[in-house]
């Protein structure tokens, strides 16, 4: 058994330790982000548009760039199950999935947060069936927003890399101990290539610090314990125990807001790239109204806002990066600056006939105790594009709110394309 010897002298390409410019797409960027975090165990199963991500991971393992156990298992369900096992044995773990794969993974997926297992899973977002489709959209990620995973949406390929690495530290923070989804838009980010900076590995090693996976729950003969005994019921200690576990999980989620901010700050200080960790405000301070965006659509929205500003429109952008936990305070700080909002979703909320980001934003705004005129826009489903021209129309429609216009229904962006 050579595992130990191999581990002490890792056979890793020196170039991996240097900062360099790469031209790559979001899936390769995610794989580099994983490489920098030095996972122990990765389990994978391919699914469009995530497939090239796990191909990159496999290639990195083949080339020795990543020294991790790679498990090519027979489906997403086993992906998440194997990772839970590995994490309970102390491993730093990673996978990526989306759409139907995420749906198939769901049963073990919803267990990871309750076990308080830090773990990172990229969601290369994909619209859900049916209609049958293989293209991007946020519906898959939105369907699991109540599963207890932290969710961060990336805007750029560079942000995919940086956020993927940061996600490990966020999840492993002792006050958090939760799994993290790093969401990148299928097609546009997954396959969109651009020039990015790969940070130097030693800087990232210093940033990552000690691995912190399973001090609370271990399947280790040196520390025998039962993990996940039946808990609950209506009598005895059950009800209070169950409630306390649940509350602690919610507390971890709330702690994550602080930890996400601290982690982004530290990343910026060490690596040199700063991001708005929760909510980004763009040209908002003197804005009358704002668009609320999420994910890669934001770039086109910024271009459209600049054009509108040139026309004298006082419009800005509130971009949500962290969607779970929902950054209520940060959102409300931004919302308090404007008189109306147009929220653009890349998915739908079936129950409320609007976008889920719209619904969440309004729920937060309710705490402002003032009426906020608003409109829900739905676009970019199943790989469709939300262009600068689309956003110019969104801006125009949102501006109508200031004139007293009211929208009873969501506005469908690509419906007449």
């Amino acid at each position, binding site marked *: 058994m050579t595992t130990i010897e191999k581990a002490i002298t890792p056979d890793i390409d020196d170039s991996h330790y240097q900062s360099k410019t790469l*031209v790559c797409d979001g899936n390769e960027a995610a794989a580099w982000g994983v490489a920098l975090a030095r996972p122990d165990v990765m389990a994978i199963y391919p699914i469009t548009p995530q497939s090239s991500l796990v191909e990159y991971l496999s290639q990195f393992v083949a080339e020795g760039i990543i020294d991790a156990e790679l498990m090519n298992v027979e489906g997403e369900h086993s992906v998440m199950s194997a990772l839970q096992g590995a994490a309970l044995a102390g491993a730093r773990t990673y996978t990526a999935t989306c759409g139907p794969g995420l749906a198939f993974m769901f049963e073990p997926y919803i267990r990871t947060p309750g076990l308080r297992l830090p773990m990172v899973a990229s969601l290369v977002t994909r619209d859900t069936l049916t209609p049958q489709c293989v293209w991007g959209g946020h519906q898959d990620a939105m369907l699991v927003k109540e599963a207890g995973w932290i969710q961060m949406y990336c805007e750029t390929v560079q942000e995919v890399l940086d956020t993927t690495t940061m996600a490990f530290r966020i999840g492993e923070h002792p006050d958090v101990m939760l799994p993290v989804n790093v969401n990148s838009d299928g097609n546009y980010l997954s*396959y969109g290539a651009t020039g990015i900076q790969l940070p130097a590995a030693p800087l990232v090693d210093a940033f990552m610090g000690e691995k912190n996976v399973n001090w609370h729950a271990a399947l280790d003969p040196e520390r025998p314990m039962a993990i996940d005994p039946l808990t609950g019921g209506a009598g005895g200690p059950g009800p209070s125990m169950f409630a306390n576990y649940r509350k602690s999980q919610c507390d971890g989620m709330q702690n994550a807001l602080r930890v996400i901010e601290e982690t982004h700050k530290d990343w910026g200080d060490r690596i040199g790239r700063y991001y708005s960790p929760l909510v980004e405000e763009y040209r908002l301070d003197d804005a009358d109204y704002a668009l609320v965006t999420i994910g*890669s659509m934001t*770039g086109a929205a910024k271009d459209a806002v600049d054009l509108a500003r040139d026309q004298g429109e006082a419009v800005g952008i509130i971009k949500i990066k962290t969607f779970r936990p929902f950054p209520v305070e940060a959102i409300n700080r931004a919302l308090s600056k404007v008189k109306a909002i147009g929220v653009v979703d890349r998915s739908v909320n079936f129950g409320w006939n609007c976008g889920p980001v719209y619904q969440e934003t309004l729920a937060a705004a309710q705490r402002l105790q003032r009426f906020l005129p608003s409109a829900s826009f739905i676009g970019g489903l199943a790989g469709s594009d939300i*262009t600068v021209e689309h956003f110019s129309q969104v801006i125009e429609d949102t501006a109508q709110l200031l004139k007293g216009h009211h929208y009873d229904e969501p506005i469908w962006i690509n419906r007449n394309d």
Partner: protein
Amino acid sequence: MHELRIHGRGGQGAVLASKILAKALVEEGKFVTAIPAFGFERRGAPVAAFIRFDDQEIRRVNNIYAPNSVLSIDSSVIRAINVFEGLQPGGTWVHSTKETKEQLTLPEDLSTLGLCDAVSIAMEIFRRPITNTIMLGAFAKTTGAVSLESLKKGLETANFRDAGLQQNLLAMERGYHETQVFHIQPHLVEAI
């Protein structure tokens, strides 16, 4: 900002070509985004890739609907789809073909045309009609938007086996030198 659309057929390496071009442009200090049009990328089916480049940061992550130039790395793809769709007046077309300028139907407001018999070059070098790197050379020659040197560097970091790299470097060079450029009318729109 310059917007380029590449047309080809599945299996010909149109998407790889867009990545090589992106690497070359980044090498020259440009900001670039390259997005493949997505559909069913089966061997033989018409495929497209979009590239934007600029001296300033590019924020939009969108497909391209009104390109400044069009590069068709396959001669027959013009029969399958309208490669000129949305092409800006005064735009550029770089095309892989044995035909002459006169034999082709050109859009009225086309400004620059580059023609390269890429298949013949490919058959000599690869013994197979692989034209993507040849046509990148043709694009560089026609537009001057990227240098041959940078393209070669972009090629070197792409994932080719050793022999493939040398062949492709030669192919790119020949594509560059064996492209005929026609300036049909003065530029109506200045492309960056």
